[in-house]
């Protein structure tokens, strides 16, 4: 009886402890919300970043983007809005906030999601599903026509229509896949990391001709700007490790006009692809 009672007590304690310490991402998130409500933005950012190390949510990255915006770190703000929109592409607030942040950061909106809005990366699944449905339904209808001996004229009209829809859906899949792959290579310029004796107050970051700090700049980009990493033969980001231990990426703008080497810690990848 005693051991039973103690067992219950132990279980109650254990359950309580589990409830308290489980769900670390939630705990960190709420800690961050409290810290933000208290006005301690740095602690809030730290807690949100800690939570993002464990798991991702659209609201988490949205809140983090808001905080970075308030701290005027527009590069990180834009990066987190992009992450939030990847998780919740239909969130109007995030889209609007991103546009606003881009505007404030003086960054021209990248064309990743602009020219063919319907073919954006987030619609890849939709296009894939549509292609599958169209393909099979058309094929089944054709086989039904064959089964019921539908006349050739009607069958031909249907076949043309079907092939047209199939072609359109395939185009959608291809374009969306292209965008999807492009997002996988996309990085956002976070900001310049000045050295201890760096008197340069400019926010612009150089895209260098060679992977080294002493290399002359090809061109420059500003925080929040979108770049795309060049890939090597293996499909991984083309990188170089300089003798001082710094990692460099070869990146280019969406239109290809700006191209050069940039430090790995000056950019943030939207998707952690694991292909490093």
């Amino acid at each position, binding site marked *: 009886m*005693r051991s039973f*009672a*103690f067992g219950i*007590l132990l279980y109650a304690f254990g359950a*309580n402890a589990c409830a*308290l310490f489980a769900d670390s*991402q*939630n705990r960190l*998130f*709420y*800690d961050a*919300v*409290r810290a*933000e*409500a208290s006005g301690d933005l740095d602690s809030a950012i730290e807690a949100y970043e800690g*939570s993002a190390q464990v*798991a*991702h*949510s*659209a*609201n*988490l990255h*949205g*809140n983090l983007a*808001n905080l970075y*915006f*308030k701290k*005027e770190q527009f590069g990180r703000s834009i990066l987190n809005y992009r*992450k939030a929109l*990847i*998780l*919740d592409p239909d969130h109007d*607030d995030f889209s*609007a*906030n991103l546009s*606003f942040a881009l*505007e*404030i950061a*003086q960054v021209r909106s990248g064309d990743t999601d602009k020219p063919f809005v319907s073919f954006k990366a987030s619609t*890849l*699944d939709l296009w*894939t*599903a549509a292609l*599958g449905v169209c393909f*099979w*339904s058309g*094929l*089944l209808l054709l*086989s*039904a026509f*064959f*089964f019921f*001996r539908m006349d050739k004229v009607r069958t031909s009209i249907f076949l043309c229509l079907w092939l047209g829809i199939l072609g359109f859906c395939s185009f959608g*899949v291809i374009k969306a*896949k292209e965008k*999807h792959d492009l997002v996988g290579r996309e990085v956002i310029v976070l900001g310049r990391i000045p050295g201890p004796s760096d008197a340069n107050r400019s926010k612009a970051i150089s895209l260098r001709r060679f992977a080294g700090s002493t290399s002359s700049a090809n061109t420059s980009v500003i925080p929040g700007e979108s770049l795309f990493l060049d890939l090597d033969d293996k499909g991984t980001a083309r990188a170089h490790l300089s003798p001082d231990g710094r990692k460099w990426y070869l990146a280019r703008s969406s239109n290809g006009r700006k191209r050069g080497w940039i430090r790995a810690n000056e950019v943030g990848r*939207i*998707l*952690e*692809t694991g292909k490093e």
Partner: protein
Amino acid sequence: MFKKPLRSSLPFPLTVRACLFLTAWTSLALSLHSGLMAQNQAMRAEASFSPPSITVSNGTTYKVVLFGTQETPQGAIPSIPGLTISNNPQVFRTASFRNGTPSVKMEMSFQVKPLKQGTFILPSWDLKVGSKTLRVPEASLQVLAPSQQDLIRLEREKQQREDLKQAAFIEFDAPRPFLFEGETIFATISLFLWDRLPVTRIEQAPVKIGDSFSMTELRQPNEKRNVRRNGKSYTVFSWPIGLTAAMAGDHDLSFKTSIRIRANNPRNSPFNSPFFNDPFFGFGREESLEILGPKQTIEVRALPMKGRPAGFQGAIGSFTSLSSIDVDRVSLGDPVRLTFELSGTGNFSAIPAPQISSDKQLKVGPPAFSFEGNQLTKHEGKQSFEYILTPLSAGLVEIPAIKFSYFDPLEERFLSTRTSAHPLRVDPGENWNSANPQPVVEGEVSNEDAVPTVDLFQTESDPGEWFPALQRKTLLENTNFWLLQLIPLVGFCSLSLLGFRRKTAGIEKQRQKENALLRQMKDSVGFKDAPALLRAFRDLLRLRIASLRKHPNPSSLSSEEILSLLRLGNNPEEIIQEARELLRSCDDQEFAGNELARQPLESLYRTSHGLLKKLK
């Protein structure tokens, strides 16, 4: 002439050496032949008390002497009521020569302490020596009444025992002689150390003896000097604790601890506590002294079932509650902090956060805990639960009152407190799209202070759905998606197969039908049955032409329709004319009876068969 004895003429060292040699030989001989001697000597046992007459406060020795053996015997002394006989005898073995006869014996001495006066007779008992059994004779002991000296010594010993108890002891102070199940009370464990006791340190904080209670951790004790008790001066070390009763019933509770003291020679003390004999306690070795507190029986009462509120979650004590919100007007989606504070005394460590459920107007996040007060006992103080609420709709929202139920052990009944509800005005929020951002001129450094950040960005106070990674698998990478394609593939294959089988079945059926009609035509020639020949021909023509022109119902085709279908197939005019003649013959035969019977059937068959072959 007197001759000197030889021994005296020997030089001294030589004499000593000779003596040593002789002694060694004697010892060796004794030891070598002790077994033989023992065998030669008859074994017997004697027993007696020494002294045989004592007072009740003194002790005596029970001696058992075994002659003729030195082997360790085995046996058990019978127990005598009123006598305490030790189990650890002193053993003494001897070997000697008596009148040239070797003799061995073994003597065992047992300490005996009488408990009462009277005459005690220890009956004879058996001892086993090797394979032999010896009978130990009975022995008698007379215990007389205590003398005056004995009485004085007893009194002194009693006093010393009392002094020892009073030199160091533990007291446990509880506010009430009873507890309720799950109740936490504030109590104090006090260790009293007599100032004359040479304590070097407290080895161990008091340890609870009693599984029915749980106790909070003990930290550094409070020290209080010159506390008078029992006419002595003490230093008191006290530990505050929170004591929680785990289960109902009467349960024993006591505490023990150990201290380190400086000790003198222990053999001088009758109680192994030599400091009583040494007024200066010396500077000898250290010794551990265990102090056991008195056992207390505490009644633990079960909580009554009567009047127990539905929302009771195990809080026992006396509490007051208060709730507050940090703002009373927010924009939609902005977080609001609701703080519920519980003050008073009770089992704070066991009180869960009150449940506040989300509804259509408010979304409630999990609470954060904080306690102000004695963190060790958590018995008295203020417990705060902080909730993050997110308004979900604009307008005047009411944050509901929080009801808290607890059991008051003093009033011995359940009580409830209720905080007041808080009105919260939720504004719809500004549509930041309408805000006009600062116009940015190319190349111009923007005014950083002008960045409107306060009203345009809202923070979600709820994390929403969690994802393990940002990049999710697309449908193209999803195995299930590809497996799902098997379903329509199977459907398609089935339909195609069925269609094909149906088509081939129709062709075969038509072929069989045509063959049958062709056979019928041939047979009709043999039987000279012109009507049958023409009927079979017309049916066959209908089938052929319907098959060629994909007519769904061949049997419904009239002669004119057959001809028009033949024209559609670009058949030569001769064939059409021939077909017309034959069809007319068929019609004539059908409507004019046997007028055509005169026509040669052989030529009719050849013509019709040839026509059927030429059809396209």
